[in-house]
């Protein structure tokens, strides 16, 4: 039976590199969007128990913004962008500027959601393009879906994706840092098990 725990050091290095390139491109895209420097922390790829994931996001009840994009074609699965509620607001604010000042509360909320989704689309688009170029695989992205909820509930998806195959998940994340404002975003690449194999096959030639 497939066991995600069999990923060895070299495998993790490969996924770390994927994350690095994907998130690096996404940071460049974000940087252009905000006209500010956005840097990324050294990406991480590791196996961890699903109960550990929420600790990284400050506990299962911490409210986060989760932006989910489904991916299909050569590899299937999800890309999940998780931002702290405050950071999501900051990001939205810097994208929208003062255009929403004269709007009603309702209009503003609608526009914020739409703006955040658009940012996600740009980030995930850059991320996918980078990974696609690196591996030579075709990857299509779905329309992003945005939720604000408890970190535990949002991260359930990650646990469910690998739950049948063991107590561990492949955890890949990158932190974004906007120098003036310190904005932290976590990117998760969640290939399904079959796609995970497809990706590791690419590792041979890498």
């Amino acid at each position, binding site marked *: *039976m497939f066991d995600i725990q069999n990923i060895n050091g070299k495998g993790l290095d490969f996924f770390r590199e994927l994350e690095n390139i994907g998130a690096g491109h996404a940071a460049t895209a974000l940087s252009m969007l905000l006209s500010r420097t956005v840097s990324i922390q050294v990406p991480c790829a590791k196996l961890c128990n*699903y*109960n550990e994931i*929420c600790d990284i996001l400050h*506990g*299962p*009840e911490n*409210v986060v913004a*989760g932006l*989910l*994009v*489904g*991916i*299909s074609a050569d590899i*299937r*699965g*999800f890309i999940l962008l998780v931002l702290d509620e405050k950071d999501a607001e900051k990001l939205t604010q810097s994208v929208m500027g003062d255009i929403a000042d004269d709007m009603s509360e309702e209009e503003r909320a609608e526009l914020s959601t739409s703006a955040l989704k658009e940012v996600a689309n740009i980030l995930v688009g850059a991320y996918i393009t980078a990974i696609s170029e690196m591996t030579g695989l075709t990857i299509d992205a*779905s*329309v992003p*879906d945005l*939720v*604000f*909820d*408890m*970190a*535990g*509930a*949002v*991260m*359930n*998806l990650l*646990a*469910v*994706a690998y*739950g*049948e195959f063991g*107590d561990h998940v492949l955890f890949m994340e990158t932190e974004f840092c906007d120098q003036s404002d310190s904005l932290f975003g976590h990117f998760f690449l969640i290939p*399904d098990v079959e796609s995970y194999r497809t990706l590791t096959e690419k590792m041979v030639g890498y």
Partner: protein
Amino acid sequence: MDTFAFDIKRQEPSADRQVVLGKVYTIGIAEHKIAHGPDRLATLGLGSCVGLVLHDATARIGGMVHVMLPNAPQNAAGINKSKFADTAIDELIRLMIQSGAMRARLVAKLAGGAHMFSTTCNADFMNVGERNVQMCKKILRERSIRILAEDTGLTSGRSIEFCCETGQLKVRTVSPKSIRLI
């Protein structure tokens, strides 16, 4: 906090059982726990997962499990039974009885099984919350355990806390902000 501490001081040794001052045990994903009144059981941030409690009101024993998926894989040797609805409930019943609960008195409550994201991509994967709830109900029906209350489905994450003394289940959501007692 201050008033709470004050209450503790005021409590007479012969105080009746209405004063509930138990410990809270919090369980994680795919974990389970049995506790006795007045202690409480909690699990935080349920998304598509289901928090299921069994209760024997007379013996004041409660059991909680945080179920993640509906079905255990076939050749399932050495799996964590608490992870899958079809194996977790039987295991919880067994542990309840072992701790002194009576099989015939067991009743159930459940919460969770939300549909967190509305993306239609990879659809079989997305409705796992609904399938979790259905499987839990199916197993409970087959075991003739009555469901007293449920707060399932919808699109919100939930945190739950169960009082083994009163059998009350507190369900909390953050979007929208709400607290329900079921």
